[in-house]
């Protein structure tokens, strides 16, 4: 079957009423949490994961994916209207988006963000459909040694592109790997790090880790911060673009989409990196860079297209190689595992309706977002006016219900609180939690492949260096590490993340 045959199969699945409904729920929830500062897609997906147990796997994944790319649409609304990022990936949109709003061009900024995102979403959907089959057929030839090296490359890539101290990020990955192997060892049947607690024999739940580190820790830091949220919503009138604005924005949308699609593929990439990089590029190529920061429409169009494209193409490594590259994808691994689907190259052949249904649903979801969002902006502004003191207890409640219903047991709630506590410490010490979550989901897989590779090589560790694909991946990983140690690259990296603070 060619790309279009596959997509036809996918649309057949995505357009059934039940899956349309879940796509709608996903994108609406995603937009909602995208609009609201202080709660991100990781915590939300963790919260809703347990409620998807009863669903068909494809419906569950369609809904959870919708939350991620829906959040990219919602985040821009908050950035533009109140100069505060609803999502980290929309942080750069504040710079020019809010300036446009102050000049009375809020409508144009919102429109270009939505239309740019939609265009990027369409391109990214086609990219997934086109690149996944060849990638997964390569991945099917991988042996345990290649898989092991691939995971090393993925994890190293994720920490190189993450910001903060490199050593810290690598240590977080290792800690994650260690936490990931808590529970019964599949080879010997021995319970490890379980302290004779029956619940721990099955391992630590990904929901507890993600919600504790991302949800609870975030709430606590928000409560500690003394700055008040000033909500000065700018007036929105006329959600359309003038011809001049369209001509300025269109090339930026194209560049943003291309850049975002590529960056989404990289380990550690995804929506956030894409938007920062796109802003930097727009500033570089502009004839008059001084317009930036004063309401340049390219400064909204580029990043907003890029973050949506990146959010979607970051599904490619997950669906074809089984390697999650950011925290949201790590949770998608959790979601697939719950439904007894092992993420990896075999998903496409063994479960084609799930794979293509998910891909097609992304296009459908993007269409829903662009149609629904612009008219609903009034509602989102109302929601933004709900004070945080009312909001965070409600978030805690949904977290509590979500964790509890994972196994209908109080133990998971206690576990989440422990990770919440650890998360607060990590915030204080400036340790990014995302690498830990990646290590956590990859822990068992890495151990398994390391064992198999070493068994096949009869204990000879050079197997990782004598197999060409494995060697190539390790060389790239080492190259990435070297790059970051070199002072020049370090400076650029620091500059790229500077806009954030």
């Amino acid at each position, binding site marked *: 079957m060619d790309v279009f045959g596959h997509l036809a199969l996918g649309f057949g699945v995505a357009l059934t009423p039940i899956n349309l409904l879940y796509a709608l729920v996903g994108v609406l929830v995603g937009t909602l949490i995208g609009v609201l500062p202080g709660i991100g897609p990781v915590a939300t997906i963790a919260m809703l994961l347990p*409620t998807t147990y009863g669903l068909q796997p494809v419906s569950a994944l369609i809904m959870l994916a919708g939350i991620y790319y829906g959040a990219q649409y919602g985040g821009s609304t908050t950035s533009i209207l109140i100069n505060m990022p609803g999502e980290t990936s929309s942080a750069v949109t504040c710079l020019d988006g809010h300036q446009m709003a102050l000049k009375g061009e809020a409508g144009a900024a919102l429109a270009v963000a939505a239309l740019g995102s939609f265009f990027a979403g369409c391109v990214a959907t086609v990219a997934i459909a086109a690149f996944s089959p060849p990638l997964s057929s390569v991945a099917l030839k991988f042996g345990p040694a290649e898989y092991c090296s691939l995971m090393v490359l993925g994890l190293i890539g994720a920490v190189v592109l993450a910001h903060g101290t490199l050593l810290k990020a690598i240590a977080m990955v290792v800690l994650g790997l260690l936490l990931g192997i808590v529970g019964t060892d599949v080879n010997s049947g021995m319970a490890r790090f379980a302290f004779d607690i029956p619940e721990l024999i099955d391992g630590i739940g990904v929901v507890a880790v993600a919600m504790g580190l991302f949800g609870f820790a975030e709430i*606590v830091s928000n409560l500690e911060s003394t700055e008040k949220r000033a909500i000065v919503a700018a007036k929105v009138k006329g959600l359309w673009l003038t011809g001049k604005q369209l001509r300025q924005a269109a090339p930026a949308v194209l560049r943003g989409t291309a850049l975002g699609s590529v960056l989404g593929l990289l380990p550690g990439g995804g929506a956030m990196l894409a938007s920062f990089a796109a802003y930097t590029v727009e500033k570089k190529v502009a004839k008059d860079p001084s317009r930036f920061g004063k309401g340049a429409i390219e400064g909204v169009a580029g990043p907003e297209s890029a973050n949506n494209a990146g959010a979607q193409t970051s599904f490619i490594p997950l669906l074809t190689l089984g390697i999650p590259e950011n925290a949201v994808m790590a949770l998608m691994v959790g979601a697939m595992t719950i439904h007894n689907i092992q993420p990896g190259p075999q998903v496409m052949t063994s479960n084609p309706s799930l794979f293509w249904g998910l891909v097609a649903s992304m296009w459908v979801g993007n269409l829903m977002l662009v149609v629904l969002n612009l008219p609903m902006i009034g509602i989102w502004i109302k929601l933004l006016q709900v004070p945080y*003191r009312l909001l965070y207890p409600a978030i805690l409640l949904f977290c509590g*219900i979500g964790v509890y219903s994972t196994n209908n047991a109080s133990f998971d709630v206690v576990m989440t609180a422990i990770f919440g506590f650890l998360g607060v410490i990590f915030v204080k010490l*400036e340790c990014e939690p995302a690498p830990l979550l990646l290590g956590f989901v990859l822990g068992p897989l890495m151990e398994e492949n390391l064992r198999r590779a070493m*068994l096949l090589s009869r204990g000879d560790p050079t197997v990782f260096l004598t197999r060409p694909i494995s060697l190539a991946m390790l060389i790239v990983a080492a190259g990435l590490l070297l790059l970051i140690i070199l002072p020049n690259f370090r400076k650029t990296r620091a500059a790229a993340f500077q806009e954030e603070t």
Partner: protein
Amino acid sequence: MAKIPRPKDFYAGLLFVAFGVVAIIIARDYPLGTAARMGPGYFPRLLGILLIVLGAALSLTALRGHGTPLPGWKWRPVSIVLLSVVAFGLVLTHAGLVLSTIGLIVVASTASREFRFRESLLSGVLLAALSVGVFVVGLKLQLPIWPGGG
């Protein structure tokens, strides 16, 4: 003791070393196996050693350069937020969703400096109704609504 130039990195390093040491101590009785046939203790010990090395390196590098000081630690929001959710998880089976929800909302709200009792009570009642509607009726989660499993 002289002031540590980058305290955040320094203490993070110590934390990683501690995790590594604890992991190795707990895993000391797990069979190690050989490189070709790894036992359940091989990978954990490998990770433990790696964590100690990385943590120690991080702490050592933190002795040079300059960084931001450690932020303060406020027990009030941490303990209220975390304990209110733990309490919610513990009483949910016995007290039912409605009462547990109202309890959680009111207790958790006290973590904010802008706490208002009546407002949080009202919010608790509304959210209790909402969560019964969404989670029990809509998503059919197996949660008791009233005390005694009703």
